[in-house]
């Protein structure tokens, strides 16, 4: 039996693995990794694309994205709500989907998202009809505020972008998961397939991976490894993992006398 599909804003996806498109050694390697991963959603930084509509051959990253995957433009580079909103509008004007991965990180050093500006931008973009997937720190209250304004998902970070530290925010993500009314996508910091599996085992609806695949010596093969880990983690979650326990189950139970 296969895993249940992922549904975001009424659209259904078989794959629960999203891919980022930065940091690859070439467009061809990126395309091969996208195909191998089985992903149906890839995100692209708008600042690296040609927004003029003139087909700039020196900014042609979109040419390497297979046509059957959903292009999720992201607003990386924006430092405040106004800039992010402007980028999202331009993406639609340039013929891209009205789905947007809302990323506002004014601190270029750790690329941590600005919660205040993200909430502001989300409100505006949702009202304008965008399908908004906001990248946030693993803040359960912010996640609730965003789903209240109508975002399609929340995307808490596992750890800082590119850090490969895994789910250092796991306890916070678990709170977000218990409260979520929209899909929760764990984004950033996933450096190994085991991290992705862990996210699914605790109930994440999807994960987004970029650096770990992009900088691997064989990106397509690493993408395959992540695909398998995502499917395994999700399957385990759907089947129901048995809780780990620190003690062996007693062969001579201590409370059977109560029922004798």
């Amino acid at each position, binding site marked *: 039996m296969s895993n249940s599909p992922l549904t975001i804003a009424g659209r259904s996806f078989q794959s629960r693995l999203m891919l980022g498109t930065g940091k690859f*050694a070439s467009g061809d390697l990126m395309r091969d990794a996208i195909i191998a991963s089985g992903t149906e959603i890839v995100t692209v930084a708008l600042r690296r694309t040609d927004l003029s509509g003139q087909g700039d051959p020196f900014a042609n990253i979109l040419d390497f994205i297979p046509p059957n995957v959903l292009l999720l433009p992201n607003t990386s580079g924006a*430092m405040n709500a106004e800039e992010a909103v402007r980028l999202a509008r331009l993406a639609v004007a340039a013929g891209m989907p009205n789905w947007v991965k809302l990323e506002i990180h004014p601190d270029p050093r750790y690329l941590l998202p600005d919660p205040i500006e993200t909430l502001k931008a989300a409100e505006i973009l949702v009202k304008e009809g965008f399908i908004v997937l906001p990248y946030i720190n693993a803040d359960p209250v912010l996640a609730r505020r965003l789903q209240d304004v109508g975002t399609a998902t929340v995307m808490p970070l596992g750890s800082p972008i590119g850090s490969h530290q895994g789910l250092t925010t796991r306890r916070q993500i678990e709170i977000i998961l218990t409260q979520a009314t929209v899909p929760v996508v764990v984004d950033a910091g996933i450096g190994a397939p085991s991290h992705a599996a862990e996210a699914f085992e605790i109930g994440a609806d999807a994960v987004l991976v970029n650096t770990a695949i992009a*900088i691997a010596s064989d990106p397509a093969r690493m993408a395959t490894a992540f695909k398998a880990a995502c499917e395994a983690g999700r399957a385990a979650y759907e089947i129901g993992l048995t809780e780990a326990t620190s003690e062996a189950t007693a062969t001579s139970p201590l409370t059977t006398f109560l029922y004798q």
Partner: protein
Amino acid sequence: MPDLQTGFIPALDALPSRKSPLMERFAALLDPKSPSQLEAMARESRAITRRNFGRTMRLFAPLYVSNECVNNCQYCGFSRDNPILRTTLTIDQVITEARHLVAQGFRNILLVAGEHPRFVSDGYLEACIRAIRSFVPTIGIEVGPMEAPEYQRMVEAGAEGLVVYQETYDRDVYAVMHTAGPKKDFDWRLACPERGYLGGFRRIGIGALFGLSDWRLEALRLAAHLEHLYKHCWKATFTVAFPRLRPAAGGFHPLTDFPDHALVQTLAAFRLTFPEVGIVMSTREPAAFRDAVAPLGVTIMSAGSHTEPGGYTGAGSDDLHLTVKGRRVELDDKPDQARAEGQFGIADERSPATVADRLRSLGLDPVWKDWDPSILAA
């Protein structure tokens, strides 16, 4: 907001005896290393760079708009007392040069000029920026220091990056090197990055010219400056550069050694200390060295550069003149094929396409466009 009154001065003047914990670690990385220790540093530097920047290399080109200058800097070809052929490009000529670079692939252009208020006014620079902003996604400037409100005008015109090198962080050497002009004021130059940040620049490049002072001390002071700026200008992206002196008009010779192994050690020490900092390597370095260090931590490279105004297309060659005491002096007879004097000779003369191909063969994706002006456009 940064404190422009004292800024980095107290911390700088306390070096090298008083260091932050981070600078203690940085200084230790600069201690003499065995070849195997240096190899380990280089490997770690490469791994950190890949995590933060991936297998990519940003490319840019300098566009020199003027070689007029009021300063005398002993190492620089543009020094006012050098009897060199000078010109300042007209706005149309700037457009011609920029279009040439865009046709080569560049989407990130650094406008460079000597410091001369008469020939290179802030109004002129603003006009240059406005003239190319419609077809150049990323524009930076490397020009004489300005006040924050002037920087703000440059940002409003469409510039997004500011480059200003301190040249040397050694006050004594600085005083000997800079004998005339406003550049004599060390502290005024030192606070440029903060003024640029207040003016709204998002990308700020700092650096020192290596070959003027002891390289370990120079690198330590540069690193401390970066540490200071990260704290006080938290929304800016920073780059550092370690340019080595190149032959230039005036015939200056480096005062200190900065051999290849020292440059590699410096580069790795910066990467290990500042995983997120952009590291620039220009065409001052020869092709073989650039290829060798490209994967080790460098994130931004120029290619096919010219350091003379009009260098790409010959623009401005009909206007060549001397400048004596701030006044234009016409040439009695202009030599055929004459070009304006460059700031320094470049060492890697490969074309941008050749450099891009070489990067690909090294497993690095050349990234031409990494910014869109519409992010800022009101």
